[in-house]
């Protein structure tokens, strides 16, 4: 720590009190000085603009010309926002998308990682193959998967090719022809069960359930990001020592028990990281959905990101768009701040 300058002659460095104080104070000034430009930039361009966005969300700005006067009562924009049926649908869709996407991406990634970890032939090759989708842009993924899940092309042609529909036809049953991203149905609605406990729920216009068109979108997102989850899990598997596996084997654990009771619990820190990273991707998703299904039938695949874009650039309701952006930020913060706090504590 004291030997900060190798250019100085050794005897000077060793001369204790003075040089020590010089090095110490230089370092004290230098590191804040070096950090200052990026700190200032981050302060202005990240926190400054978060603050500005929050301010806009409280303002009257709802035309082409900026109007930064405060809207009274303060916060009324948020009230209007949460009262809007489209935004309510967007929040439901985000929750549904996140759940399906996380389950598929994490389980998919874990399965791929375990398979590759067992040193099957060509595992290096497959590792690259599985990771490739992660390198694509969401727009590319969205366009390609929109062809796959268009009911007139893609998967449904495959279903026809299997002859399933011919068999169904002989029994007088209509053909199997899922609507995929065009399906407006909201399945597994919870409104009735909730109304049994809490009667006003019967009046809700929002259908609490799973918009079926969202599932293909979650599949596309999981396809893209399970490679990333796999890479994280592979790194984690690499840190589990051979002794642990051998000890388990000596104790007579089957492969199933080995993974269930030993390896997967040891991967917990990785799983948490993967979950957090994928959750914030999912809460902010815009481009994939925009390219793949847009708002979907009856907003079945609409997400807050699309809402923000349309409110600001099409409806010119800047205050609405800003308020929705702040709601997204709060959502992401709820997930990420405790995680960061924990990480910083362990450092």
């Amino acid at each position, binding site marked *: 720590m004291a030997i900060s300058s190798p250019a100085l002659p050794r005897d000077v460095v060793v001369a204790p009190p003075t040089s020590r104080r010089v090095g110490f104070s230089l370092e004290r000034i230098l590191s804040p000085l070096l950090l200052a430009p990026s700190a200032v930039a981050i302060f202005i361009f990240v926190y400054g603009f978060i603050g500005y966005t929050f301010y806009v969300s409280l303002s009257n700005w709802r035309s*082409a010309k900026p109007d930064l006067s405060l809207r009274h009562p303060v916060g009324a924009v948020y009230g209007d926002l949460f009262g809007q049926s489209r935004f309510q649908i967007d929040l439901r869709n985000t929750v549904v998308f996140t759940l399906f996407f996380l389950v598929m991406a994490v389980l998919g990634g874990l399965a791929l990682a375990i398979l590759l970890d067992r040193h099957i032939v060509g595992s290096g090759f497959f590792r690259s193959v599985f990771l490739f989708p992660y390198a694509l842009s969401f727009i590319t993924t969205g366009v390609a998967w929109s062809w796959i899940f268009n009911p007139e092309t893609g998967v449904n042609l495959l279903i026809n090719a299997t002859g399933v529909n011919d068999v169904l036809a002989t029994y007088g049953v209509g053909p199997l022809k899922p609507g995929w991203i065009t399906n407006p149905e909201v399945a597994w609605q919870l409104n009735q069960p909730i109304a049994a406990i809490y009667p006003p729920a019967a009046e809700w216009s929002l259908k609490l359930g799973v918009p079926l068109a969202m599932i293909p979108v979650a599949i596309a997102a999981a396809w893209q990001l399970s490679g990333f989850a796999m890479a994280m899990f592979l790194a984690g598997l690499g840190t589990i020592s051979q002794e642990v596996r051998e000890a388990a084997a000596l104790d007579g654990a089957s492969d199933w028990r080995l993974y269930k009771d030993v390896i997967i619990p040891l991967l917990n820190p990785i799983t948490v990281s993967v979950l957090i990273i994928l959750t914030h991707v999912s809460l902010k998703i815009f481009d994939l959905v925009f390219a793949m299904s847009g708002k979907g039938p*009856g907003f079945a695949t609409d997400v807050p990101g699309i809402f923000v874009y349309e409110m600001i650039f099409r*409806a010119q309701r800047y205050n609405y768009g800003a308020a929705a952006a702040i709601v997204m930020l709060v959502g992401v913060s709820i997930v990420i701040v405790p995680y960061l706090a924990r990480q910083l504590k362990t450092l």
Partner: protein
Amino acid sequence: MTKSLSSRASRRGVLKGGAALGAGAMSLGPLGTRLAAAQDAGSLEVFSWWTSPGEAPALQALFDAYLAAHPDTEIINAAVAGGAGVNAQAVLQTRLQGNQPPDSWQTHVGRELIDQYVVPGYCEPITDLYTSEGWLDVMPADLVAQATWESEQYSIPVGVHRGNGFWYNKQLMADNGIEVGDTMTVEEFVAAADTLQAAGIPALALAMKDTFPGSQLFENTLLGTVGPDMYNSLFSGEAAWDEAGPREAAETFVTMLDYVNEDFSALSWDQATATVIEGRAGFNSMGDWAYGEVVAKDAVDNIGWVSHPGTAGSFVLVVDSFTLPVGAPSPENARNWLTILGSKEAQEAFNPLKGSIPARTDVDREIFSAYHQWSLDSFANDALVPSCTHGQASSPAFKQAFYDASVAFVTDKDVDAYLSMLTDAAAMDAETSA
């Protein structure tokens, strides 16, 4: 600083483009001289969203008309791609808020022009050009009114699209024994649609991927149900959305939705139009940019048209125009540009390529296709009403609510919820403008 940088960058782009074009035909010497002279007369930056294969040549025809009169000006084409100008408008808003306007930009007339650009103070009036060029005498008063605010004119219309077209496949109709006359009522449509449905063919091609066809279908159905006067009153706020007329229109809309293709939410408008051209669907309610698809697919002989059921006698205006900005970098060139745009020659050169009709009514009919001659007659004789779907009849916020309500409606078909969404949006609009 930024400005000079950006204009230098685009100038370099123009030079490069000019060099590439000229390389084969000219020697470098005269070209170099010409470009040097060009910079002396200054530049003209024109902002638009015309980049598609049908639009770019039409825009070039306007540039050619301008250069014929002012050969020493350098034109900077600042077009931003994206259907109906959604991306371009976002870029333009940013530039205007940053006080970096182009010399002229494209906008629809009506509320889009007035609310987004005139009221916030981004546009200079061009009333004197209207007077000196005699445009008031050659353009319909209902159209000029769309470019007017507080008795000043703010933009010059170059091309007029008709929004209430109803396109059909002649062969498909003949095969199913359906006769389509010069006009069509809702009842006639339903009868034809039942026949097609029985034959397993969706009667109405709808596309909701880019949303606007749904609200356009409603707007046309509304016009067909309540007529032009009530239609205008609804958008101006004088009539309420929960009255009998709009309710009946919404119920007719439900009837029409019974006949749409199942995959509508995954299709874009041109894909839906293509299903009619290819004989996979019966009808398509679409503005006459659909005719561009018909021409591109070489299907002019097989595609017929009428006004959207019930709207014969009305012309839904979708009008492209250009503005004079406050603080234009080259105001003199900008005024020359607008003068050229209003001329008979420029409008006759532009419109056949763009697939629209001129805003001037004194043009040569013979240069237009059979469809456009039909549209010219409608333009001259029918009631001219603004389109909400294309931004002319309402504020941007109401337009968005109109879109959103239609997105929900085409799946849930809930008339009460639909009308209450429109009522709320109109109330919010009244509060904003108050």
